[in-house]
């Protein structure tokens, strides 16, 4: 009975979303206040209904209702309780329901926190979000119904994919979706602005914190996914350029470009068209990511559900939403002449941010190309081809090197016009320090000297350059160190930390695979790994070979590690559970291979220096996104909407004092 209620709630939510997508939009167009007034209640009603449906599905998983096809396919009576909750989004139907729920949450949040905005704007924005909601709810109801019955009910379910039975995977998809779907807010504002015909700083200032928060969640989601792949797939890598990873990385890159471009447009009025395009692109890439994952068009470890009719549906939806937005963009984007931005010279912060945008956008395009290339080759009958990590690694090094080199200059350059010698003089000592550190690292590194030198040098350069900016600001009297600046500082330091992790683990990792019999030891680096035993253990829904390895650092016992090989009861899928001894400067990683007979086992041991810094860097970037979003300026200015608006006409060069108030100019006092 309950599942039918969930079904009804979804259908009601679809009807309401149709109303939300149409009436407020028409109302805003014709100036009919009662129609516009529908937008907010509709948003709240949708949240309640979709939330209710989600609870019902959760309840079905907790009580193991195997008369629901979706539950029977993705759960099992042996499944531990925690995974019964996460199994809700363990496969296609449930993850779409989660998508719809997250969209309803964002929509309701926009409805709630937009009191300061004019009713026409918020009506259009909520209507655009309503259109997206219509698409997803229709997709759910017509092609991927989580409440479809399986009659007669089966006695036992098939079980959740063992890959997903992991704590990291409980929160990875929700965080990722909050990020993906969060980009619908700047997207909806961009569409509203294009429809309105007025592309001004108003919507921008208001959306900036939303973009920041969405991007921060996406960063967290991607980091969790990478962390999961590291310890669960048993390969010891942290990024594989898998199509599904790429699908989440593309909106991240576009979002990172959007963050920077929004700052320019909001503060200086420049790059309006570009910011609108990036806002459309970031969300479009989120939709594309959903399409790629859900349609099964690209084969991937992650593509758990593949069904062409679903692919077709998403493709049509994609065509309407993205195609429609870009058509609108082409028709309505302000041309360069009446752009309204303040003019700037070649040597200015604007130019640097433009370079940042172009590099990030190019990186995004090259990930898209690499991800779709196999599909292109397939469509042209060139056969099935996989584009491997070498392509991505090479392109990324080429594109990210200039980004890292330019990064410290960005905050130190003035808006509009800058004497390059001034920031250059500030950074020369730090460039020297970075170079010195890189040279030292080159000669000290036991292996992979180039990578280690690049990692150390790049990180010192970014960190020192960023701290130089902090020092300039803090020393300058009469200027606040705003939350926005603090967020930027944290995120840029995150880049430095990430560089250490990514390049040092690449350069310094050592690994060995050997056959060991109990009692035998393997020496690797300064550590000795003694293989003690392999026992048989029974878990809740699996049986495992449970290894014991004692690690010695000289004479001292450093750790006792337990790598496992699990065979899940349903389906017999074998999973490697690597044992990891964590450390801030290195991880020790032991994975159990196959039994070689006579008590001998294949054992694989890795030493991964600084691998944690990869995720630590990502966490800092995330934190930066949240902190920047908390800047008071975004709230204060949004309240004083009339006064806060920038004049659309280009003004003559503003005085330094005005600029200091309007924006945040680094080194103004230097």
């Amino acid at each position, binding site marked *: 009975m309950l599942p039918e209620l969930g079904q009804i709630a979804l259908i009601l939510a679809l009807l309401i979303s149709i109303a939300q997508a149409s009436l407020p939009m028409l109302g805003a167009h014709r100036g009919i206040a009662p129609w516009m007034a529908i937008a907010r209640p509709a948003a709240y009603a949708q949240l309640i209904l979709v939330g209710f449906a989600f609870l019902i599905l959760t309840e079905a998983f907790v009580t193991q209702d195997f008369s629901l096809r979706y539950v029977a396919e993705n759960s099992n009576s042996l499944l531990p309780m925690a995974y019964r909750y996460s199994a809700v989004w363990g496969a296609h139907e449930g993850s779409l329901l989660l998508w719809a729920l997250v969209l309803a949450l964002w929509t309701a949040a926009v409805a709630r926190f937009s009191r300061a905005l004019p009713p026409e704007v918020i009506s259009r924005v909520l209507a655009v979000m309503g259109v997206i909601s219509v698409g997803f709810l229709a997709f759910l109801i017509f092609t991927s119904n989580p409440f479809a019955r399986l009659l007669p009910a089966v006695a036992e379910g098939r079980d959740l994919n063992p890959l997903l039975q992991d704590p990291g995977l409980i929160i990875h998809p929700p965080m990722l979706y909050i990020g993906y779907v969060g980009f619908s807010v700047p997207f909806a504002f961009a569409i509203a602005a294009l429809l309105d015909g007025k592309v001004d700083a108003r919507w921008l200032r208001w959306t900036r914190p939303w973009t920041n928060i969405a991007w921060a969640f996406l960063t967290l989601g991607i980091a969790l996914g990478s962390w999961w792949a590291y310890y669960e797939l048993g390969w010891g890598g942290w990024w594989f350029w898998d199509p599904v990873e790429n699908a989440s990385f593309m909106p991240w890159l576009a979002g990172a470009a959007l963050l920077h471009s929004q700052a320019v447009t909001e503060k200086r009025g420049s790059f309006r*068209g570009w910011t609108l395009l990036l806002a*459309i692109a970031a969300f479009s890439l989120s939709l594309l990511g959903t399409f790629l994952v859900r349609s099964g*068009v690209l084969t991937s470890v992650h593509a758990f559900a593949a069904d062409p009719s679903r692919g077709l549906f998403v493709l049509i939806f994609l065509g309407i939403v*993205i195609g429609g937005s870009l058509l609108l963009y082409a028709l309505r984007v302000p*041309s360069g002449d009446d752009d309204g931005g303040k003019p700037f010279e070649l040597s200015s912060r604007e130019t640097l941010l433009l370079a940042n945008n172009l590099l990030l956008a190019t990186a995004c395009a090259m990930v898209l190309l690499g991800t779709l290339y196999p599909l292109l080759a397939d469509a042209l009958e060139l*056969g099935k081809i996989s584009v491997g990590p070498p392509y991505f690694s090479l392109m990324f090094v080429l594109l990210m090197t200039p980004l890292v080199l330019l990064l410290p200059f960005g905050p130190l350059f003035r808006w509009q016009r800058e004497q390059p010698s001034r920031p250059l003089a500030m950074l020369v000592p730090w460039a020297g320090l970075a170079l010195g550190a890189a040279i030292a690292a080159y000669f000290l590194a036991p292996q992979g000297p180039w990578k280690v030198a690049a990692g150390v040098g790049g990180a010192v350069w970014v960190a020192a350059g960023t701290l130089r900016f902090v020092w300039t600001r803090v020393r300058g009297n009469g200027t606040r160190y705003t939350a926005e600046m603090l967020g930027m500082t944290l995120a840029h330091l995150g880049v430095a930390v990430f560089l250490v992790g990514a390049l040092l683990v690449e350069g310094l990792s050592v690994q060995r695979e050997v056959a060991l019999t109990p009692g035998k030891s393997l020496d690797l680096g300064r550590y000795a790994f003694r293989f003690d035993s392999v026992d048989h253990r029974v878990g809740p829904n699996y049986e495992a070979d449970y290894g014991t390895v004692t690690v010695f650092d000289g004479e001292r016992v450093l750790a006792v590690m337990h790598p496992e090989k699990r065979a899940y009861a349903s389906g017999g899928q074998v999973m490697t559970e690597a044992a990891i001894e964590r450390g801030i400067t290195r991880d020790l990683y032991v994975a159990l291979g196959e039994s070689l007979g006579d008590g001998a086992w294949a054992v694989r041991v890795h030493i991964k220096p600084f691998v944690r810094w990869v995720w630590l860097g990502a966490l800092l970037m995330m934190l930066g996104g949240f902190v920047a979003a908390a800047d008071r300026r975004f709230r204060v200015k949004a309240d004083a909407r009339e006064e806060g608006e920038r004049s659309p006409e280009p003004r003559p060069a503003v005085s330094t004092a005005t600029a200091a108030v309007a924006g945040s100019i680094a080194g103004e006092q230097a």
Partner: protein
Amino acid sequence: MNTPTPRGNNSRWLPLAVFAALAVLLAAGVWLSRKPNREALPSPLIGKPAPAFSLPVLHEAGRLLSSDDLRGEPYLLNVWGSWCPACRDEHPVLTRFAETKRVRVIGFNWKDEHADALRWLEQFGNPYWVVVTDFEGKSAIDWGIYGAPETFLVDGKGIVRWKFVGPLTDATIRDELLPKLAEVEKAR
């Protein structure tokens, strides 16, 4: 230098044009995945003798396996690499089929690092009777291999009888491979 916003009337249409091209490609992708049992790329090899090869065996350093060693009984040659995600999808299907011991399944490890290949088999299990390696991909050219996975059925006389491009599915094995194999076994 002012702003990068599109000035002309053409550049503002560029994003839409790019998306249109992308949509066509994705539509092609959906269309292709609608017919998972689509005809394999016609192989000129079918009905002809399999290319002669002599390749190193993955698990035994120094040992070579040649096409002559495989004469007498039919065998299935499965092209894979640890770098190929589709091979991971195919792996359980192939494993189930190999367990029926209907025919020898030879792994053709293509353009792969030795250690990566071993690790891949160690993690997912080894369904192959024997695995030969073609690191440089020279022998693969003789076979006309475009990508991985690809699968060839060769009969006891060394004639290629069937070829499949892309990951094998249970349906492909049931509807195509098994009938072809029955034909091959009857003719012997």
